[in-house]
């Protein structure tokens, strides 16, 4: 019965109730979505970072180097000479060096020239086939396979550069020799082949478009001569000592640059964090306003319902019970607002998910409540209780004789 009374009261004058719930819904929805996005982005970035202590590439922005060489979400800073690279990779502090050479793309997924260590580093598991052994053999990441439908044994052509309308290397057909299982790492969105393949295709391309484009595209000069060039090196050290000495040596004595991915990514997240803090503050303001609206709607209703409450008292209800009833209304409002908000946040994620997979090759998932959302829940309920407290105290203190006499 008490639930019925509370529920009926809430739906009897629905405007205030709806306003409160909608405000709460947006506040909670925005925050929950942000929390999840931020968490997942951080997880994903850190996940892709494992075993990479240092990235070495052409001079330029260190952040760009990290974003391009580790996450493949930015253009490379340029290429480095293999001979330069050879000078540093024999340092005794280095445990492992993985070379990367960029060149082509397949349906806007990058084709990376590398070696099998790269796959091992991310603990790649083959769905079918195995790793490349010869030139023009390729291993296909899970998302690439999913979106292109490539299967083991299929032949395909690469496009020069990252654009969808670049030059297609018609003379060279890649052969898919292995398809990877989804790993939730960058491998999902890559086509991998050996370094020699990248060199071979671009050596040829020099001749190929040399005649046609010699005068028109001088800017291409540095990328159009990729023979014996690499794009980046991913380095793992034997001891943290390496991180102290080697970056300085590289940055100061060679024309390459070394960047620590952890440092750069932390910097990036600090920057993002500022934006996120701002949005979170706005969302919290929305939640506070919704708390105010819960207060106003409960308080306003209390004025209308003074007689009802007095009536309840005259029929035997104790003060405490009325206090609880008003408080429960506030609780129910904030609880429904929270649920609606979480639902909205998840709906937003689903939308973003479909959008992001197509556009950014990013996949979001996670359905349970995160720990931060647990806090959000407590805050929301707390605001609901705080908003209901004054009306509840008013109900507690109601002078029923005066109320009943003043009809």
């Amino acid at each position, binding site marked *: 019965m008490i639930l019925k009374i509370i529920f009926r009261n809430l739906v009897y004058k629905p405007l205030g109730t709806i306003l409160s719930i909608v405000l709460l819904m947006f506040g909670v929805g925005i925050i929950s979505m942000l929390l999840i996005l931020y968490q997942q982005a951080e997880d994903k970035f850190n996940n892709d970072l494992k075993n990479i202590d240092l990235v070495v590439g052409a001079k330029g922005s260190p952040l760009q180097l990290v974003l391009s060489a580790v996450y493949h979400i930015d253009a490379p800073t340029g290429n480095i000479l293999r001979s330069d690279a050879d000078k540093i990779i024999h340092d005794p502090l280095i445990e492992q060096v993985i070379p990367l050479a960029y060149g082509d793309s397949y349906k806007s997924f990058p084709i990376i020239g590398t070696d099998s260590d790269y796959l091992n580093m991310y603990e790649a598991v083959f769905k079918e086939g195995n790793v490349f052994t010869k030139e023009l053999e390729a291993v296909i990441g899970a998302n690439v396979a999913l979106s292109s439908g490539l299967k083991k044994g299929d032949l395909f052509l690469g496009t020069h550069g990252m654009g969808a309308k670049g030059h297609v290397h018609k003379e060279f057909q890649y052969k898919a020799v292995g398809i990877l299982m989804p790993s939730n790492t960058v491998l999902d969105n890559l086509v991998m082949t050996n370094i020699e393949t990248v060199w071979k295709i671009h050596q040829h391309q020099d001749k190929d478009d040399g005649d046609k484009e010699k005068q028109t595209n001088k800017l291409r000069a540095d990328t159009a001569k990729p023979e014996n060039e690499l794009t980046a090196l991913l380095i793992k050290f034997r001891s943290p000592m390496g991180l102290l000495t080697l970056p300085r040596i590289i940055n100061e004595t060679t024309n390459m640059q070394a960047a620590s991915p952890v440092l750069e990514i932390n910097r990036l997240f600090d920057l993002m964090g500022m934006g996120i803090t701002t949005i979170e503050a706005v969302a919290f303001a929305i939640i506070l306003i919704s708390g105010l609206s819960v207060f106003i709607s409960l308080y306003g209703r209390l004025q209308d319902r003074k007689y*009802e409450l007095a009536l309840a008292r005259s029929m035997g209800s104790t003060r405490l019970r009325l206090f609880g009833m008003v408080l429960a209304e506030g609780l129910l409002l904030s609880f429904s607002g929270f649920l609606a908000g979480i639902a909205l946040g998840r709906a937003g994620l689903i939308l973003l998910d479909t959008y992001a997979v197509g556009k950014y090759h990013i996949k979001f998932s996670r359905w349970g409540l995160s720990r931060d959302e647990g806090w959000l829940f407590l805050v929301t309920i707390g605001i609901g209780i705080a908003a209901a407290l004054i009306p509840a105290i008013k109900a507690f203190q109601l002078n029923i004789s005066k109320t009943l006499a003043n009809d």
Partner: protein
Amino acid sequence: MNIIESLNVSFSYNDAAVLSYPDFKCSVEAPLVIMGKSGSGKTTLLHILAGILRASGGEVSINSIKLNALSPGQLDQFRGRNIGIVYQRAHFMASLSVLDNILLSQYFSGQPLKPTKARDIARQLNIEQLLDKKTMQISQGEQQRVSIARALLPEPKVLLTDEPTSSLDDDSCLSVVHLLKEQSYRVGSALIIVTHDERVKKHFSNTIYLR
């Protein structure tokens, strides 16, 4: 057997203007009419009898239990179980149906809900067809019957009514008086009518006047 007794009861707002009330007793067999003009403290007395206000002096006892001896919480519960009140103007929880409003008295007094019994009483009061409506949708006369049904459902020891006939024509006045007498007797409640309506007293042998 006397159910409700009032002895030397007085009441004062802010230590000024003391109202003192005559002593009286009331039983199921002998309903009581308390007559008084406006401003004579009728509603105040009704609230004292109902335990909504505390008397400044003297005492009210119901079934030999002194209201002044009860704590506020106990008083609320005691009122719920033992006292039914019909107000001058009927008031309801507007969001609930007529049936639920009748059941409220059982709910708030802590008794198990008995919708069948509520329907029985509604049938006695001829409002059975209104049970699913909202209280705003029915006439004032009907609202009064609903509040009588609500007051009687927990089978209170005392039924207090405040000006039940003041706005009614003679015919309706008569039928409400009969209804109250009949139904309170059937349920076993001692009936007290507080009113200034001269038409009421001739139907009762037991009348006191407030000055």
